[in-house]
C-alpha cells in the first residue's frame, strides 16, 4: 500500500506538548479506506503493522471514506517517521508521501512516543 503523511488539527493542537497522550494517540492513527479494512479482515479500532525495509510500527486503524483504496494516511509524527526512509534523492527532502509499505493485521500494542525514542537510543524525559 502507499503511505501518505500530513497535518491534522489534533496533531497541531498537541504539537507543543508531544509527550501528551493526545499527541501519541493522533500520530499513531492510520486512516484506511473501508474496502481495504475488508481485504485485511480488520475493523475500525483494530491494529495494523506497517513495514518499510527493516523498520516497522504498529498503528490503530480508523476507517476513512476520504482515503483512496490502496493508500493509508497517517498524521505527521514519530510513528510514521519510524518507517519513512531517510533518502532525499539529492533534494534534502525525504519522501514523506507516496511511500510503498507492507500492511498486515497486528495484535501488538501501539508504542508510546517515548518507547519509539528509546528504540532509537534516546531517553524519556
Amino acid at each position: 500500500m502507499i503511505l501518505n503523511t500530513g497535518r491534522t488539527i489534533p496533531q497541531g493542537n498537541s504539537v507543543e506538548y508531544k509527550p501528551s497522550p493526545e499527541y501519541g494517540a493522533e500520530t499513531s492513527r492510520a486512516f484506511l479506506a473501508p474496502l481495504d479494512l475488508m481485504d485485511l479482515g480488520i475493523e475500525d479500532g483494530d491494529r495494523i503493522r506497517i513495514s518499510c525495509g527493516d523498520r516497522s510500527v504498529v498503528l490503530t486503524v480508523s476507517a476513512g471514506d476520504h482515503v483512496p483504496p490502496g493508500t493509508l494516511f497517517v498524521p505527521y509524527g514519530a510513528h510514521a517517521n519510524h518507517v519513512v526512509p531517510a533518502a532525499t534523492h539529492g533534494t534534502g527532502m525525504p519522501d514523506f508521501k507516496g511511500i510503498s509499505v507492507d500492511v498486515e493485521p497486528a495484535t501488538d500494542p501501539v508504542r508510546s512516543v517515548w518507547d519509539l525514542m528509546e528504540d532509537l537510543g534516546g531517553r524519556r524525559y
Partner: protein
Amino acid sequence: MIVRDVICPFCACLCDDLDVHVEDGRVTGVDNACDLGSHKFMTDHRMKGPVRRTASGWEEIPLEEAIRETAELLEAAERPLLYGWSGTCGEAQSAGVHLAELVGGVIDATTSVCHGPSILAIQEVGHPGCTLGQVKNRADVVVYWGCNPQHAHPRHLSRYTTYADGFFVRNAFKERKVIVADIRGTDSTNLADEFIRLQPGGDYAVLGALRAIVRGKGDVVPPEVAGVSREQLYRIADLCKTAKYGAFFFGMGLTQTAGKYKNIRNAIELVDELSRHTKWTLTPMRGHFNVYGFNEVCTWMTGYPYAVDFARGMAFYNPGETTAVDILARKECDMCLVVASDPAAHFPAEAVEHLASIPVVQLDPFPNLTTAFARIQIPVAVSGIDADGTAYRMDGVPLRLHRVLDRGYPDDAGILLEITRRITGGGSR
C-alpha cells in the same frame, strides 16, 4: 487584562487580530485565534529550567553552566550542525547564522523538510509572488494544490480567500471560485467548487496537462491524466484563463511527493503560462510562523536561504548534501544544536538515530521528542508570547511580534549571543 491586536506565532498566516486575556502572568483565554493558535497560547507544559542528562536520569543545572557547556561542545566539535530556527524570531536566526560561521558548522532550517523543494524550483524559474492583501482584494479564482488549509492554516480561507470580502471581490463566498487538488478528500476539498482528485504521485502529469491546454496544445492530452478526466482539466483551464486575478497556493502535497521541486517548477510554469492570458500569482503555504524568516535572514547574511555549510570558511550551499536529514543519515555531524524545532519527531528514524551518538543541545520552551536525545536543554521564552521579535508571513511581509506577558525565561537570541560571547572571549573573531 486584554492585550489586543496580538500576532499569532503558530503558522505563517501570522494572524494579527488576536485578543489575548492575561491574568496573573498567564494566558487565560484567546479570542479570534484558530484552534491551533489557541492551543499554543494556552499550553502550559514548559520546562522550568535548564536540565542535563545524567547516567540514570536528568538533573537541573544553572543557566550559566548550561551556556558554558554548550559553548564548549560547539567549540570542540569538528562538524557541528545547527538546526531548526523556524519557531523563533529573526533576531535569534541572525545570531544563529553568526554562530554557525564562527564554529565552521552547517546551519539548516525546517525549510529543508517543508518548502525546501519550493525554493529549489524558485531558484530555477523565479517566484511570481504577491502579498496576501492582493489575494484578498483581487483574486476571484484561488487554487489550493496539495494542501489542506482547513487543518494546517485554519484561518487562511476566512482572512484571505473563500470567506474574505475584498475591495474588488465584494461578496467573496459567491464571487470567488476555489479549486482544490488532492489525492484524498479533506475538509478543504469539501469547500471546493472544483475538486481535482488525482492519483498519488500524479501532480506533475496533471500540472503538465493543464499547461498544455492553456497553451492551446490540448489535443495532446489523453482522456484521463493521473485519475483526472480531460473534461475536468479543460473546465479547470478555462476557469483559470478567464479569471480576473488568480492565486495559486500549494503545500506538502507537491514538495514531499516524488518529483519534489520539479512538481513546483511545473506549477510555477503553469502560473507563467496563465499570466499570458490574465494575472496569476503563486504562494507556498509556509508552515512554522517564521520559517520564511529564516530563509530571508539566511539569504541576506550568506546569499543562500538554508542548508549553509561554513566548514570551508565561506558559505557553501548544496541541498541534498548540506541539508540536515542527509547529514544525520550519513552520520556526519559530531554535535547538534537544535533551536526552536523538533527533529526527533519530524525526521525519519534513520536520521534521528545518529542524534543518540553525538552531544545534542536543545533550546526549546517545552520538553519534546528531541529532549530524549539532548545532553542539555535550555528552556527559553516563546517568541510572540513572552518574547518580542520579527517574523515573516508566508507572503514575505515582516511583522513585529510583541510579548503579551513575561514568564522570566531568557529568549533564544540572548542565549545564542551569550554562547557566541563565550566562544569569542567577548571580542569578535
